[in-house]
């Protein structure tokens, strides 16, 4: 479960060492944009040591490496992989071939290190027009691709349009990515909300992303994590309804009924699936019903 993912600059020890107490479901150690070219070596070693020595509990550890058009990405991977990050975030993924190049090198490293194939997952960051158009082929490029992530800042630069708080300019990209990811059977994460001090804006933006089908949202500020977690968690009434659905289905099965209704609405397979997803998330959050 990744409701929230928080970016931490890879060369900032003060933030890295506190990453596990900022409330995010996943931490993204950033070796790319947050690190100047002169400090790439230092950040890489610091992130490697953070992975090696720090305990992040249940918080997932993701590393954003440098893109494959830079001289850094292979060194990034060979340095950090022995300490088993959960996932690699690949910036500027424009085509399936980009993800496949990284997949091939990860496979080579996993073999060298005696790790099971596909131990480390891959999350392409889609932040170009080409990437959006190729979203489905990227999502299905390799077995280790487990999620897509929309990056709106670079995307709007590529689209030659203004990035606004209303985000109308990324509506197509958002829906396109959700569609591609769901069709491929992988998760999908929404772009960060960049106004750190707008508490209402982040809530509205996260809620809209959830309504579109995103699995969670990425943040560049610890301030946004709590709101994102709240928005992407099921509410008590959603949990109650999900249990009602499953109870009604169980009862109908016992009584040999084929079709049932609840609260005046037919309960069909998609509703049951959604209820199961809600319960599964509620259980993961400790909000589920205690079974007798």
């Amino acid at each position, binding site marked *: 479960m990744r409701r929230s993912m928080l970016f931490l600059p890879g060369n900032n*020890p*003060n933030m890295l060492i506190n990453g596990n107490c900022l409330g995010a479901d996943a931490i993204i150690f950033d070796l790319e944009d947050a690190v100047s070219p002169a400090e790439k070596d230092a950040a890489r070693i*610091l992130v*490697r040591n953070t992975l090696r*020595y720090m305990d992040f509990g249940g918080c997932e550890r993701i590393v954003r490496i440098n893109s494959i058009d830079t001289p850094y990405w292979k060194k990034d991977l060979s340095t950090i992989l022995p300490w088993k990050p959960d996932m690699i975030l690949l910036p500027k993924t424009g085509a399936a071939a980009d993800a496949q190049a990284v997949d091939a090198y990860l496979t080579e490293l996993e073999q060298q290190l005696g790790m099971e194939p596909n131990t480390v997952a891959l999350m392409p960051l889609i932040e170009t027009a080409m990437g959006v158009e190729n979203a489905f082929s990227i999502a299905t490029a390799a077995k280790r691709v487990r999620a897509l992530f929309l990056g709106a800042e670079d995307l709007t630069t590529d689209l030659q349009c203004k990035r606004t708080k209303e985000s109308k300019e990324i509506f197509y990209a958002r829906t396109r990515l959700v569609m591609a990811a769901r069709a491929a059977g992988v998760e999908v994460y929404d772009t960060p909300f960049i106004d750190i001090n707008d508490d209402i804006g982040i809530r509205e933006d996260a809620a809209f992303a959830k309504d579109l089908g995103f699995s969670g949202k990425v943040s560049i500020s610890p301030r946004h994590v709590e709101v994102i977690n709240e928005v992407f968690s099921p509410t008590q009434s959603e949990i109650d309804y999900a249990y009602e659905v499953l109870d009604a289905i169980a009862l109908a099965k016992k009584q040999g009924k084929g079709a049932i209704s609840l609260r005046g609405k037919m309960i069909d397979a998609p509703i049951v699936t959604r209820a199961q997803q809600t319960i599964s998330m509620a259980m993961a959050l400790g909000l589920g019903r205690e079974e007798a």
Partner: protein
Amino acid sequence: MDIKQIASAGTMESSDVYVEIAPGNGTLEISLESVVVQQFGDAIRAVVLEVLQEQQVDNANVRIVDRGALECVLRARVETAALRGKGNV
């Protein structure tokens, strides 16, 4: 192995450590500034020595200015400074 050039790594910011390394005069000299030098000075020096040994550096002048860095940060900064000093970046 000799350090070929003066190099540094890290910052003076909280939770970080600044490490400066320079060509030595045949030995390894380490100077340490830290607010916790009384309590952790020996431990910090031991970690610095261990990382320098791993990097096969035995001839250098090393200046450490600690700002409350955890061991994993200290190790990272010393390693980075040593690699930069050897020209291996």
